[in-house]
């Protein structure tokens, strides 16, 4: 769709983006505020960043969060890619409807339900709550997001390529590894990034499944936010926002360059 951009269109886009971005921009600005009172501007300062790095509890929580996110995103990517393959390739197997349901349901399941149900599972098998229970919980809900992302790339994949590889002597696994995986790799990477940020971000499921010694950063932020807004939390948030923005913009630019390179390659070699 295109056509003329009317004044109505311009206004709704500008207002929409203002609504989306002004709160985040204000949060970032006020993290550089000298005053402890978050809403009174008292001059530029980076003292809250220094205090944040000296806050041992906050740093420990950040470290736990990063480890959980790295492990859970990686396992979720492997499992989610397998689930996507199963959904796209194998249209007939026993219990496929149940399987499809279990892949899509966690996408919209209220977090309180997922968190509660996983905790009750861990309690009934007497598993000590901590790093591993949070990680298992995060793998479970983010594998579904990975599956959806990878699936949307797989549906447009030309299966005859993999069949050709198998005709030429590859085992099914080799054919997948050497032919399919390189083609769907960008989707696998974006699936991993999505799983990583979902894990970094999660408060509710982590609060249910975590135990002593495994407080994640969102849990720490939440407990401090309940006591009031502090410039230190603004500083933590600003750093997280910055990291995510850099990650997403880099990823977008890389995929764009790849698309441009692909287009050039096709032009140079019309066959």
């Amino acid at each position, binding site marked *: 769709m295109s056509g003329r951009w009317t004044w109505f269109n311009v206004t709704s886009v500008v207002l929409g983006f203002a609504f*989306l971005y002004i709160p985040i921009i204000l949060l970032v600005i*006020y993290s550089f505020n000298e005053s402890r009172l978050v809403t009174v501007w008292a001059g530029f300062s980076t003292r809250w960043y220094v205090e944040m790095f000296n806050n041992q509890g906050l740093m420990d929580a950040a470290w736990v969060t990063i480890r959980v996110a790295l492990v859970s995103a990686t396992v979720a990517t492997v499992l989610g890619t397998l*689930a996507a393959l199963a959904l796209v*390739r194998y249209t007939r197997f026993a219990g496929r409807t149940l*399987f499809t349901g279990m892949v899509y349901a966690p*996408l919209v399941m209220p977090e309180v*339900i997922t968190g509660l*149900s996983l905790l*009750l599972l861990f309690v009934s098998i007497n598993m000590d709550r901590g790093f591993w229970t949070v990680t298992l919980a995060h793998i479970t809900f983010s594998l579904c997001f990975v599956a959806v992302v990878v699936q949307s790339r797989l549906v447009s994949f030309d299966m005859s390529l993999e069949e050709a590889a198998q005709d030429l002597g590859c085992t099914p696994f080799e054919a997948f590894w050497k032919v399919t995986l390189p083609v769907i790799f960008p989707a696998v990477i974006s699936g991993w990034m999505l799983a990583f940020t979902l894990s970094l971000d999660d408060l509710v499921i982590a609060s249910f499944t975590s135990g002593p010694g495994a407080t994640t950063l969102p849990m720490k*932020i939440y407990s401090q936010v309940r006591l009031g807004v502090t410039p230190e939390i603004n500083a933590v948030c600003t750093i997280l926002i910055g990291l995510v923005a850099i990650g997403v913009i880099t990823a977008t630019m890389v995929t764009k360059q790849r698309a441009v390179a692909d287009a050039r390659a096709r032009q140079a070699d019309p066959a």
Partner: protein
Amino acid sequence: MNLFRRLTILIPYLWLLVLFLLPFLIVFRISLSEPVLAMPPYAPQFDLGEGWAAFRDALSQLSFANYVWLTEDALYRNAYFSSLRIALVSTFLTLLIGFPLAYGMARASEGLRPILLMLVILPFWTSFLIRVYAWIGILKPEGLLNQFLMSLGLIGEPLTILNTNTAVYIGIVYSYLPFMVLPIYATLEKMDYSLIEAAQDLGCTAIGAFWKVTARLAVPGVLAGCLLVFIPAVGEFVIPDLLGGSETLMIGKTLWTEFFNNRDWPVASAVAIILLILLVVPIVLFQNAQARAQETGS
């Protein structure tokens, strides 16, 4: 059937059975128990080691008492209705803001669209908690919004917005706006603009053409967007907890309180099961839409 194919299906299938389906069965089983002061804090316990008679005895102690209590107690009933109402109103408000935004994006020039799309997705990657937190500083009585309005002379004294339902609406609309915009944008972007020109050539006014062509074609996107906002909003916990006040009754918050503050696991489980039942219809609708969209490859 070869080994690779078998493992491709079996590994994620088993994982989801054990960590997704089994937990729900456990929640259901605990919702039929009674709370006790022990660890784990519910009774009866099943222990096959104590023999078949003891197992049967424990089985007979399970009851639907918690459900009866939940339907009789006005607090829970109100919490369910109020969650549905808040989710419904917020979904409508999100659509009201999201549709013009998606429409404007779809009509932007070819070069501008990817940038606008990235700008919509970017906040979605930013922490949910942070985005909700950002509003506290804005909506507080001495917060930035009140300072701004008072400096303009529009209001004489600070408005109370934080800790009311209004703040909850703002929080939900703000947090879920990308979920509404993306599916609508996806359907509008694929639309052929010449259809509108044709409608206008045939005598439609601009508004008539919009209503008869654009709005009709956008229905799948609107439906997907509304479900993606409505379903998680019903069970939302963080937004009503941080932005809402004591008047804000939402079921996600009730479940959290029952579990963490009252330590009543059976009631919390029963609350979860009822919430799930309420959401079954929208979730199935969402799954069908999702499966159809994936199969047509969009």
